């Protein structure tokens, strides 16, 4: 094995065990160049470990992060507009269904009293509208909470 190949092993010298370690030690005893290379590696290792081991952010880091997050949160305000548009949309759908039912109802022979039917339809449409508003309101509150 030439010096080049031993130098590959020298990079892992600290972790070498058994036969590999014996081979390397035996070569080092005879080769000044490789001994100097190992010393140079150890110098580099020690210098870099001293420079970088245990590096941490400053003590104020976490507080600085929380300040930035709080600033971002303050800039964001929940908007009622999407929920309002939802409410209007559903109201329009329920209203249309009620209008359609009122328009179709004379064609159905079962119902004879048009006024009663109109009142019932209006009540049903109103009830459906209130129910839809209640559901949308609950959903809006849940969304805003998050």
């Amino acid at each position: 094995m030439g010096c080049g190949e031993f130098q590959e092993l020298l990079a892992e010298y600290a972790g070498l065990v058994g036969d590999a370690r014996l081979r390397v030690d035996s070569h080092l005893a005879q080769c000044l160049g490789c001994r100097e290379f190992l010393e140079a590696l150890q110098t580099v290792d020690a210098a870099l470990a001293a420079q970088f081991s245990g590096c941490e952010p400053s003590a104020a880091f976490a507080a600085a992060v929380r300040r930035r997050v709080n600033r971002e949160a303050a800039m964001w305000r929940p908007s009622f507009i999407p929920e309002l548009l939802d409410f209007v949309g559903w109201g329009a759908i329920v209203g249309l269904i009620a209008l359609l039912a009122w328009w179709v109802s004379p064609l159905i022979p079962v119902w004879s009293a048009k006024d009663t039917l109109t009142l019932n339809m209006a009540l049903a449409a109103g009830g459906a509208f209130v129910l839809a508003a209640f559901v949308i309101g609950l959903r809006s509150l849940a969304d805003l909470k998050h």
Partner: protein
Amino acid sequence: MEQEIRACLEQKRYQDAFDRLLPEFQNKVFRLAFAMLGDSALAEDIAQEVFVRIWKGLTGFRGQSSLSTWIYTITRNACLTALKAGWTKKESSIEEPSVARAAEKSGIEPSAHAGIDVLRHLQELPQKYQQVLRLYYLEDRSYEEVSRLLEWPMGTVKTYLHRARKELAEAVMQGKIR
């Protein structure tokens, strides 16, 4: 801890999740940023930005990857953006606050001479060698951690590390670093 954070996310307790996540990951995020950027002040700034992005993205985190993978990906992307924008400075020194703190902690008198020489020579290595070398020592010489944080294959990490250390060792032998 990652399980606890995930449980908070599943229950939509995003603030609780963030409060647990910040102390758990702040050191790793900072070290990864420092390794990639080589400047501790910039690394802190980018690390803060990373946590703001994490806070904003928590509601959309669906758990397709692990939490740590997601966080380190955000960190790497933020650092790559900073590098492309040319925010890094060319030289760093023993006067770097985090480096001085590290030297203090290790009980080693910040040997200005050898430390600065090695750091200066490190700056001349290719960017990828610098990153892997910094992170290797920042992460207590763990190949696995370096591979995981940079998302590089283990073989690549070992190759880059070996070449970087060899170049620095040769510089020592030629007397360029004392």
